[in-house]
Structures are given as structure tokens and as C-alpha cells.
């Protein structure tokens, strides 16, 4: 059955089910954050990835545990997909000491180095060179891990993107660059901010493969990323994969969304990656409707538990202010 779906052979049915649940975890997490923001219970700023679950779950879903990721300012999904603990994530957004960054980082700086999540980043394009460095370590120490580097379409206009791709290419580093093209960099439509149709075309300027995938299609994502990751692991160097997707919410809380239309939003919502994945799993008889609902319910509960955990966690003590500036 799996072969008709042309899934990478090592993806088990069990894994597919867990990815389905994970996508709901991501969605519910960010929906909750959105609510709490509106109520003023979470401060600062956050960037939600509702609508982009497939690119996070599909890409990271084909990694091995030893592989690493580098995320972006829109990183909750990536963190969850890299086995992130939603309790610690929610606690971080509440600024609590039990959070991933002891309440000091907030949404944009969550990292989980032990799990191979080398961190979100508040600087657009800031993480791309870091991914190159992490891949260099893998190569120099012969550690066999691959780095998945996430960034947006907007970030691909930063100098750091171009410099990093070139370096990774000439050194044949095991890094796969994933451009999550959600059509906008804040209010800038990708069509107005670049002259090319596909950001993946930029790969050719650095002599590496570039590929465009439907960023809401789990199967296409998993197949493409799997292939690129394994090639990189075998020493064939980097690749650039562009996921065409959409962020359902505004850029952040200050966004009146004047730069796009309701019709456009509605069109994209129809392409919901979670629903498409569910339909496929049911069609392929990997999941029944009831099972699917059960997994969705479980995800919802876990997020509600995470909220409770966060709310019941203490604030960081004032003495912690000076800790961790230096190692």
C-alpha cells in the first residue's frame, strides 16, 4: 500500500499516524497562542505557522534523531516536529522558568540543542549561515548527521542566504535548505520582491540542485526531503527545496493584513495540508475516521495540558537575570 503512495520506504504506518497527530499539535498550539495573545496573556511578539504544518512535519519527519534543524522566527511547528516538548514551549511563551529558555527567550528564541533543534531566530536569514557551520562540524568530525535549514521567502533576499548557499556548495556540506515560501515576507508579496518565479531557481547560481514542491502535500514533501537528506548524508552536498505554502494568520499581532485579500486566504485554506493528509491516510486505509478523530482529540488535550503546565509554572527568579551570559 505504501508503495502506491511512493513514500520513502523507511516511513512506517505508525510514523504516518504520529505525523498526523503532530500536525494537529502544531495547529492547536499556535491557535492557542493566538487566543492568548489577543487576551494579553502572552506578551512580546509571536509568529504563527498555522497553515504551514506540512512543511514542518513532512520535512522533519524524514530525519533521523541525530540530524539537526535550524529554525526561523516562525518556528513553533519546527520545534514540535523535532520532538519539542509542548509544555516547555508554552511555558516559554508565558515567560516561565520551566520554559525552554527559562523565560528569557520567548517565542523567537526557542532551542532544544539536545534534540538537535539549534534554535529559532529573530533575525531574518540569521540562521542560514549557522546551518552551514553545523553541517561543517558533521563533515569535519564525520558524524553523519544532516542539517535541515528553514527560512522564508523573504529571507532568501538577505545576503546571508547567498553567502551561506555558496559556502555550503563549495564545501559539499550535508545541509538541506528549506525555503518555506508562504507568499509573503511580512507585507511584501514574493512576486514583488523577487523577479524569478521560483526561489528554488537560485540554487543553480550556486551549482546545487533546486526543487519546488507543493508545501501542503505531505507525501511530496517527505519524498523530496528524504532524497535530498540522504544524498547530503552520502557526501553529495547541499540542496535547496522550496515549499509553496501559505500562512493563514497575519505576520504577527500588528498585522491588519491590508496587503492581501479574503478571497486569496479562502483559496489557500482549501489546500489545508492537514486535511489532505488525513484524506489520504483514510483512502489508503492507514487510518479510520474514528482513529483520525481520536488522534486529533489527543493533540488538543496535550495542548490544553501544556497551557495548564505553563499557567502553574513559576516566574524566573530575579537572581537568574545575570546567569547564562557566559558559559
Amino acid at each position, binding site marked *: 500500500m505504501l508503495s502506491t503512495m511512493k513514500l520513502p520506504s523507511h516511513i512506517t504506518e505508525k510514523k504516518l499516524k504520529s505525523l498526523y497527530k503532530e500536525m494537529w499539535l502544531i495547529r492547536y498550539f499556535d491557535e492557542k497562542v493566538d487566543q492568548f495573545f489577543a487576551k494579553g496573556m502572552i*506578551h*512580546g*511578539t509571536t509568529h504563527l505557522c498555522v497553515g504551514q504544518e506540512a512543511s514542518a512535519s513532512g520535512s522533519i519527519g524524514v530525519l533521523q534523531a541525530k540530524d539537526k534543524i535550524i529554525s526561523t522566527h516562525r518556528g513553533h511547528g519546527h520545534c514540535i516536529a523535532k520532538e519539542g516538548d509542548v509544555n516547555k514551549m508554552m511555558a*516559554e511563551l508565558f*515567560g*516561565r522558568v520551566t520554559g525552554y*529558555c527559562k*523565560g*528569557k*527567550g*520567548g517565542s*523567537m*528564541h526557542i532551542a532544544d540543542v539536545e534534540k538537535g533543534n539549534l534554535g529559532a*531566530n*529573530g*533575525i*531574518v*536569514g*540569521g540562521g542560514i549561515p549557522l546551518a552551514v557551520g553545523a553541517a561543517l562540524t558533521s563533515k569535519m568530525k564525520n558524524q553523519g548527521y544532516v542539517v535541515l535549514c528553514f527560512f522564508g521567502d*523573504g*529571507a532568501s*533576499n*538577505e*545576503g*546571508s542566504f547567498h553567502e551561506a548557499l555558496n559556502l555550503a556548495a563549495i564545501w559539499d556540506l550535508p545541509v538541506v535548505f528549506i525555503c518555506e515560501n508562504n507568499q509573503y*515576507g*511580512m*507585507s*511584501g508579496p514574493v512576486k*514583488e*520582491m*523577487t523577479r524569478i518565479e521560483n526561489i528554488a531557481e537560485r540554487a543553480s547560481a550556486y551549482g546545487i540542485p533546486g526543487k519546488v514542491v507543493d508545501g501542503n502535500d505531505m507525501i511530496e514533501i517527505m519524498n523530496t526531503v528524504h532524497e535530498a537528506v540522504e544524498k547530503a548524508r552520502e557526501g553529495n552536498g547541499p540542496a535547496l527545496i522550496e515549499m509553496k505554502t501559505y500562512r493563514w494568520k497575519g505576520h504577527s499581532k*500588528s*498585522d*491588519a493584513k*491590508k*496587503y492581501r485579500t479574503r478571497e486569496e486566504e479562502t483559496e489557500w485554506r482549501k489546500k489545508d495540508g492537514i486535511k489532505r493528509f488525513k484524506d489520504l491516510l483514510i483512502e489508503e486505509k492507514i487510518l479510520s475516521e474514528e482513529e483520525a478523530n481520536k488522534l486529533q482529540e489527543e493533540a488538543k488535550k496535550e495542548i490544553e495540558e501544556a497551557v495548564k503546565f505553563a499557567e502553574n509554572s513559576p*516566574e*524566573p527568579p*530575579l537572581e*537568574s*537575570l*545575570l546567569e547564562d*551570559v557566559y558559559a
Partner: protein
Amino acid sequence: MTEIKIREITYLEAVREAMSQEMRQNEDVFILGEDIGVYGGAFGVTRGMIEEFGPERVRNTPISEAAIAGGAVGAALTGMRPILELQFSDFITIAMDQLVNQAAKTRYMFGGKGKVPMVVRTPAGSGTGAAAQHSQSLEAWMAHIPGLKVVQPSNAYDAKGLLKAAMDDDNPVIFYEHKLLYRTQCNVPEEQYSIPLGKADIKREGKDVTIVATAIMVHKTLEAATELEKEGIDVEIIDPRTIVPLDEEAIIESVKKTGRLIVVHEAVKRGGFGGEIASMIAESEAFDYLDSPIKRLGGLAVPIPYNPTLEKAVVPQVPDIIEAVKETVRFK
């Protein structure tokens, strides 16, 4: 006599008004930056401007700080007067080469040929919960570079007048807008006016101690002074408004009068601009008038944390200023 119309507007509106008035008069002035068009900029400063001036003059850019800063330098060198909005002042680091090695040096390296009249407007400071990469106060970096001017308005009136002066200036000017001041209001004349760069404002006259405070610290210091007055301590507050050029004379004169100096800024104290002001006084004739050691209050040497309680604890607050003043005046 012509009637001068004054009304209360916010700091944010004052900045927008200064730009709009200038753009109506001078075709060479244009703005460029990320999301400054229909979005109106991350903080809403340019809201509505694209409707009036169009996309050629309110120019949305890709997320490319180095290219747009360098682009502004090139445009300025060839006859335009660009205003560059950098979404957060932290991102100045990405444009650093263009600002430090290009904008600041060009005229001098060319032996006085050519000029770079541009303004980099950018929101600075903590207090919004945006954490370590979106909350810094890096003005001392810019002040260190010969060829750049550095402005830090503390209220709407100054913001409008100083921005006019910055736009008229033939040099690159870094114009720091404090995020927490955007919504503050004060009386601002409708017509254009200019506040010369390098002219401090004495915010409050006093005889016991001089406090030099910048940006948001001006407000905290004023609050502290009101408290201290109840205890019979009379604070003089000087807002330099621009740290390059710096109105050294105003500070020296004040210290000669009060015999005491405290400098308060939000930026990290270590290597901060407060050290420069303190040294300037130590090297001046005012040194002989000092009755107590000079004090600096600044941010702790830690990145800005996300948690609101910790965030507040990093930068000087009113009670810290009150305590510093008491310690200083106690010294005999």
C-alpha cells in the same frame, strides 16, 4: 504676527509629519524600507504615506538591510536625500558595513568631494517583550564612528524638530526612535521647525545635582526628580538630544553649577555613551567643581530577557535613579 498652531500629537505622528512636510517641499526626499507601504511600517510610522506620495517615494524594499543601506548611500551621493527606515535598530548590524565603512567615510576619503545626506530612522530600546534580538540600544556603536551623527529624541516636539534638522543635514544621521515613546504625546506646532543638532535641552533647572539622560530615561529622570523634590533635593536634568554632536558646553556649565553629575541611559553601561560624557567632564574645567564622584546608570551587561519582570530589571528604573541621586548628594 503669524499665528502658530499647536496641538498635542504623538511622537509617532510627529515623525510622520516631519517626513510628510519635507517630502511635499523637496522632491529629492524619499523613504525606503521594509513594509513601509500599505503596512505602514512595523510600528505604523509611515501609515498613510504611500497613499499621498506613491510607491516611488515610499519605497517598499525586500528584506535586505545591507543592500538598502548601501543603496541609500549611493542615492545620497548622487543627489537624492533618502530616509531609510530600519524595522528594528538591532538590524543595523546587518547594514553595518554600508553605514560604517561606506556612509560615514565617503566624503572624507574623497577629500571633501561628494556628500551623503541620508537619515537612518530606526526604533530602539526594550520594554516590548521582543527579547534579545529586537530590544537593544546600540547608539554608542554609531557614536563611535566619525562621519555619523546620532540623534535620540525623547519627546514628540523634539522628534519633529530634530528630524527636520537631520533631513536638512548633508551627512548621514542615525535617528533612534524609542519604541515606548511612540505613543507619548506633547504639544507640537503644525508648521515646520528645526532643532539644531548639538543643542541640549535643559528639561528642569536645579541646583543640587546634574543628570544627563537620554531618550526614555529623560522621562524616568523627570519622575525621579519630582519625588526627590519632596525631600528637598533639586535636580537639574539635561537631555542632550543628540549625542553626536554633543552639547558639551551645556553639560559642563550645569556641572559647574551643581557640582555633581549622574548620567542615565538605557544602553548597557559598559562601553556605553555615559562613559564618554563622564570622561568629557573629567577632562574639563568642571572637574574642579565636582563635590562627589560621577555616577553612571545604564543597562546591565546582559542581553534583554523576554520575561517582563526580568526585562524591567535590566534597565534603570525610577527608584534606581532616586537612589543614585541620594547617594551622590550624601557625599560631602
